[in-house]
């Protein structure tokens, strides 16, 4: 007989975890007094979100160091061997702005769909205990495949970036053409690599949905990946802003 004790809350309130020990987290025993054998998914979600925030700090440091290198290099004079004088040799890159703006729109759309996917699975996870009550039906789950849409849009963004690199090459800006072009390729490629990682995790999330993992566990994966995805979008805005306004 399934016992319906307390529902999994959708919006998990942030308690005073850690810090000065106001409410030290009690592991084991379940935070909300549910029945035996149920992992505390709420606590697990908070923990994985915390892990993500910490991990994103290290990603931020990578881009902080690249930004610092970019800004300093831009202002650094080099020796012109013909005139024996120090001149600034920074050549602003002729960016394919239209294409990059399209890519930005695609990534924004993918962030929106990622958020919708996140809320969708949060609702599904909240209602999961209800579904297990015999005789209760919530109707067919005809949810829009937001997760798959995110993957498609993310893939479209990466394709667009690939096209942007080709466009740059057509305009004569290769990886080693100038310091500015090196940085443009480097920053966008580093971002693309991280975004690819996000896509792989989303594919993993889609795959496990077919493997009948509990919806609460899948929710954690989708939730954290969606937050990661939003970070990737904001990071892209920053990179785009950097190479355009500080060119």
């Amino acid at each position: 007989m399934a016992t319906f004790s307390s529902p999994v809350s959708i919006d998990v309130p942030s308690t005073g975890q850690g810090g000065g020990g106001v409410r030290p987290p009690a592991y084991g025993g379940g935070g909300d007094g549910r029945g035996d054998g149920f992992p505390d998914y709420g606590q697990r979600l908070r923990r994985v979100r915390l892990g993500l925030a910490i991990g994103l700090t290290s990603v931020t440091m990578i881009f902080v160091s690249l930004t610092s290198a970019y800004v300093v290099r831009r202002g650094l004079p080099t020796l012109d061997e013909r005139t024996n004088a120090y001149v600034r040799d920074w050549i602003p890159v002729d960016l394919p702005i239209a294409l990059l703006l399209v890519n930005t729109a695609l990534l924004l759309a993918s962030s929106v769909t990622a958020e919708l996917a996140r809320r969708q699975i949060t609702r599904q996870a909240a209602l999961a205990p209800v579904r297990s009550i015999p005789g209760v039906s919530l109707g067919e789950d005809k949810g829009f495949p937001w997760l798959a849409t995110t993957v498609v849009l993310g893939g479209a963004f990466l394709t667009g970036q690939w096209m942007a690199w080709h466009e740059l090459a057509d305009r004569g800006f290769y990886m080693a053409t100038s310091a500015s072009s090196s940085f443009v390729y480097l920053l966008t490629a580093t971002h693309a690599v991280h975004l690819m990682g996000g896509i792989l995790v989303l594919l993993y999330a889609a795959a496990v949905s077919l493997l009948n993992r509990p919806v609460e566990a899948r929710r954690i994966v989708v939730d954290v990946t969606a937050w990661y995805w939003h970070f990737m979008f904001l990071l892209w805005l920053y990179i785009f802003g950097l190479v355009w306004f500080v060119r």
Partner: protein
Amino acid sequence: MATTATIHSHAPQGFIRKYIFSLDHKVIGLQYYFLALVAVFVGMFLSLLMRIHMVWPTAVLPLVGEIKPETYLSLLTMHGTIMVFFVLTTAPQGGFGNYFLPIQIGAPDMAFPVLNMLSFWTTFVAFVVILAAFFVTGGAPLHGWTGYAPLSALTNSGPGEQLGADLWITSIAIFCIASLMGALNFITTTLDLRAKGMTMMRMPLTVWAWFITAILGLLAFGVLLSAGILLLLDRNLGTSFYVPLVVVNGQVMGHKGGSPLLWQHLFWFFGHPEVYIAILPGMGVASQLLSTFSRKPIFGYKAMVYAIMAIGFLGFMVWGHHMFMSGMSPYTAFAFSLMTMAIGVPSAIKTFNWLGTIHGGRVRFQTPMLYAIGFVSLFVSGGLSGPFLAQPVLDIPLHDTAFVVGHFHLIMGVAAIFGMFAGTYYWFPKMFGRMMNETWGRVHFFITLVGTYSIFMPMHYLGMAGQPRRYSQFTELAYLQQLMPLNRFITYAAIVTISAQVIFVINLFWSMFKGPKASDNPWESTTLEWTTATPPPHDNFGGRTPVVNHGPYEYSVPGAPRDYVMQTDPATVASH
């Protein structure tokens, strides 16, 4: 009935899941430890070859033959890289930290066990890649562990600078990723998995040290990763991040406009926090052991915590003191110099608090305590030459001399290692259920203490006398010939000291199988790992959840029945 937020609660079956791809932080900790043990012997072998070559340059050695000058440079590059990354960053944090951080905070495992397993195996891959550099065409790189551009950024700058250097950079990049994953795990675990009653200010100082070290790693390794990627691009894709217009062997290279200083800044922005990553866990272990074996609470627990934080924070602001000779403005040098001297303050606070802990205690001079005291001694000896180097004016004659080599070896190569030895002798009973041999432990301690002082103290004198560093031989330099007897003394001391480490290894492995059985708490220590069985069960506490009622170092509490109060003892037991 485990209703936990951790993924697994059942002990794994099968050899592969139990010992190879284990998710158990205790197994992973031992994997890191044994990786570091292999690495340290590789590193010591390299240093032995270096020392022998320095005083007998024409010697033909077994296995390696005659060492050419460029080979010497490769030896010192790989010695530094392997020791700094695969010993000093691996064993104290990945080894002991992995094993004992969850237990000391009352958790059943790390926050992310799968990530933990991946961290170790990624580190292992990085180790294999760097060892591979020895065996490829051209051999290992010769640009020093610091990898300065443009030497490291050009593929034709020397033997070993082709595939060997690419493997070196790749290995370091892989290591960065492994360290970042580990740091994430440590920080999340410390913040989120503490048992009931284990507030931040009740955590043992070992946990504080691992926690702050992880934060340092989180912020620093990303910068090294960036630096390495830029270097790979310069070498292989013709970019000019680090390489200005250069001519090599009459050939104009295609680079233009890059800055070797960029590499230095990026590298040392990582490199200085890295040395604090190497020493902080040892400080935590020293605090823990000095308190335990003096039967006294640590002197000034709060100050110790704030000092660790201050050292970590200030450690990010001093990287320029490695670059005083790079042509920086004297005003910049002054700023870095001031910050470097500022770090001396929390370090001194810690040192005096260690002394204050021992003072007036009923000291038990067992081997772990000897190493903890040795740590304090070497931290002072190695640390005191730091402020000398922190003066730009003094750094001008001392930079790139044996003085610097003596400084960082005393503090990283000896003090940090003593921290590891201390941790080994201390935690061995808990990990393996047996005691290490006390007599041979003391023999190992005294030979190592006297030996390492003999090796590295004279280097300060040699440096002041003008002996440069990274020179493969001094036979061409007349002014250094009178220093050769001292160099030979150092080499003899190195041979003896390295040989003595065999005693430790034999003690370690013999005791694992044949040592006297240990009780659950042979040192009568107070922290949580000593409350559980020996070795700890899979979930660390045998299905029970520890509840913490006391601080970590409640020794000799007036009114208490014993001279130590375990952290899980009932709250009614008298506490400070």
